[in-house]
């Protein structure tokens, strides 16, 4: 590329929003995306409206991916990875590799690292399996089901008992994730409300620790009024099968173990640092915060390296959107 451009590493929500905002100011962008298509995780998410909108934030996305793909000032390199980065602010060179080999991209003024996150269930040994309305699935899989839902339902065969296991891979020192993932209470309770809307008879049970703030005032009571059961504990173990079995200590019973059967178990998985974090941190000279997410070591304004999105920690969709616009504005403000 002959003109000065911005390199965006990761073409998910953060990367695309930043790129589009920069491109709309006439600043050329190159997006390096490891998958075959743009969109990251968000692309598969489903709408959480029951009879009315439940403010999950997905609408902000709209036709973002198409607009990015079609924009003349954005070059999208799919199935590509960043291999090396040399230079300083205003004058970077990047080495990018795809299935055909490596190439050098010159004349990069700034870099946006937006590699996103990995879901907790991919890091653990819990295998995800699903068939009809049965099985053990991750939050992401439930999102996909919601996205494909028709007018009359979500599942091919309605499960009669569903369990949500909250804080899966979050608030857990053993899982090396001693933090709250911020988004799971929101997406899982909203998903539960959609399920309740379509299936009034299905039992829905949440195994939880706390309910983070999703909406104001009396959200917890609203959920309970919709006949969603809340059990404050983390299960001891899950035994997959038909039906699945959840073993847990009955709260308030002094440690008595109880087993319950569920047709479908949803692991409300948290947000873990992306698998690529180590590699990208080394290439781009980034550090880690105490939860393992990336952070900048020096001021982005000086280095020209910016972080956007969940690469730096759990964020909700509107927060990622707002942050990405800000990053674009900082870069654009600097260029001008």
């Amino acid at each position, binding site marked *: 590329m002959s003109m000065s451009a911005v390199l965006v590493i990761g073409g998910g929500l953060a990367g695309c929003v930043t790129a589009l905002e920069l491109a709309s100011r006439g600043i050329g962008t190159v997006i390096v995306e490891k998958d075959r298509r743009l969109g990251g995780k968000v692309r598969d998410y*489903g709408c959480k409206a029951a009879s009315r909108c439940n*403010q999950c934030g997905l609408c902000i996305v709209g*036709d973002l991916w198409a607009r990015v793909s079609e924009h003349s000032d954005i070059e999208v390199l799919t199935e590509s990875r960043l291999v090396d980065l040399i230079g300083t602010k205003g004058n970077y060179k990047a080495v990018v590799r795809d299935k055909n080999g490596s190439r050098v991209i010159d004349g990069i003024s700034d870099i946006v690292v937006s590699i996103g996150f990995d879901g907790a269930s991919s890091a653990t040994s819990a295998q995800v399996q699903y068939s009809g309305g049965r099985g053990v699935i991750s939050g992401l899989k439930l999102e996909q089901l919601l*996205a*494909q839902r028709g007018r009359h339902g979500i599942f091919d065969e309605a499960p009669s008992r569903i369990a949500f296991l909250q804080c899966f891979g979050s608030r857990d020192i053993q899982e090396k994730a001693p933090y709250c*993932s911020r988004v799971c209470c929101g997406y899982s309770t909203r998903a539960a409300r959609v399920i309740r809307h379509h299936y009034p008879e299905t039992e829905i049970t949440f195994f939880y620790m706390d309910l983070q703030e999703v909406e104001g*005032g009396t959200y917890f009571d609203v959920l309970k009024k919709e006949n969603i059961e809340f059990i*404050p504990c983390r299960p001891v173990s899950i035994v997959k099968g038909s039906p699945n079995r959840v073993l847990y200590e009955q709260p308030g019973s002094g440690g008595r173990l109880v087993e319950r059967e569920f047709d479908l178990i949803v692991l409300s998985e948290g947000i873990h640092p992306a698998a690529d974090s180590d590699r990208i941190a080394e290439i781009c000279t980034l550090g880690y*915060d105490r939860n393992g997410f990336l952070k900048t070591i020096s001021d982005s304004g000086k280095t020209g390296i910016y972080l956007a999105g969940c690469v730096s920690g759990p964020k909700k969709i509107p927060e990622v959107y707002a942050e990405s616009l800000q990053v674009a504005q900082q870069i654009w403000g600097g260029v001008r």
Partner: protein
Amino acid sequence: MRIAIIGKSPINEPLKERLLSEGLTPVLVENINDILGVVGQKGDFAIRTRYGDVEAGYVIATQGPELSNPVPEVPSLPLSGSSVQNILDKNAKQAVLLLDYPDESPGIMTEIALKKAAELARKRVNVVCLARFIRTSGGYLEQLYREARHFNAVFIKYSELSMDCFENAVVIHARINEGNETISIKTDNLIIAEKISAGEDIREMASRLRIHLDDEGKASGDNPFVFSAMTNRKGVFALHNTSPGLTNETKEMIDYTIAAIKMEMAAGKNSGHAVVDADKCALCYTCYRVCTHAAMAPDPNPDRSAMMNLEEACYGCGICVSQCPAAAVRLTEAGMEVKPEMAMKGSLKIFCCENSAKLAFERAKPELEEIYDKVDITPVSCGGEITTAGILSALHRYRKVLVAVCMDDACKHLEGNKRAKRQVLKAQQLLKSIAMDPGRIEYVQLSHAMPRVMAETVIEALG
């Protein structure tokens, strides 16, 4: 560029500092009772006050929320006040923090409680924190929770609670352990998390600024397209008017607001907007009232006795066009037009909102391959553009009309989908009144992420 800060709030000072450091000029209008209204558009606002007009390019409303004691009959200190200093000054040995009573406290209260619990515990005060939820979804809060516990602050989760008072002491009875145990705690140092509500002040301010608030007083709460500090008026921001002070979240909101102002300052001219035909305009003020973005105002030009569109405030949603009784407004980029349909394909006409239904339709195309020829799509910028006349006009040529717009509470323009529904109901009623089948007009609400719902609706409409 002058930025007006309207309202009284502890964040005014830090906000002023940030604005100055960014080369912007803050102008303070603290007493909202002095304000009669805010007219104009992004880049060119006039804040009408009793003492004259204050001009500003952008407006940030910061009026703080009302903090009230949810249990005034019990002696206590407010959590977000200087309760820590009070306790320490008294040389108290014990303090009890109470959250989520009687309603869930917002997450910000957990943050404040954790900080204060840690501080008191570090200073050798026995701290007991009673809450229904420990909300640690902010980045470092989980660590703060551990720190407080490390200093021996005790956190107890309760499901129900009642209190008795004896002189200055309070006895709290809490059901814990899933209701299997009741504990009683006596304290004369009770700190209660206040109830945060949008007081009359905020509602008054919102009405004078013509910004829309949700039930909790947040400017952006119930609309997924409007987020962080944005409001329904371009160039007017509502900065964290539901928090009692400066927190991490507030700082982020200030950052975002300043970035947003800079982006707006640099944004190009608005392309799609409304235009008023001065000859037809009856100055009935309907467009002024129905516009959710405050983008219509009387034309100050004495030669034109008409309303005028404020281009920089306008989103081109078309609500004014469909509601104008004099047909005096049009859009520069209109989707919906009332004309005898020219030779177009198919037997089903779909009027679909481009924010939701149109995108869902595009995603559903693979499923709709076979029937694609039988369907004719007219995308509109918002359900607000849709008119009864347009629907009826389409029925002249098509066997059926499907109106597809956004879900309740999901309209980018707050009410466009509701307006579309009214127009559909009216059209159906008119059909009924001439003994025709109102089922020829169908209506669906969905989001862009519901392609199968769209596909099923279209296939069913085709019969």
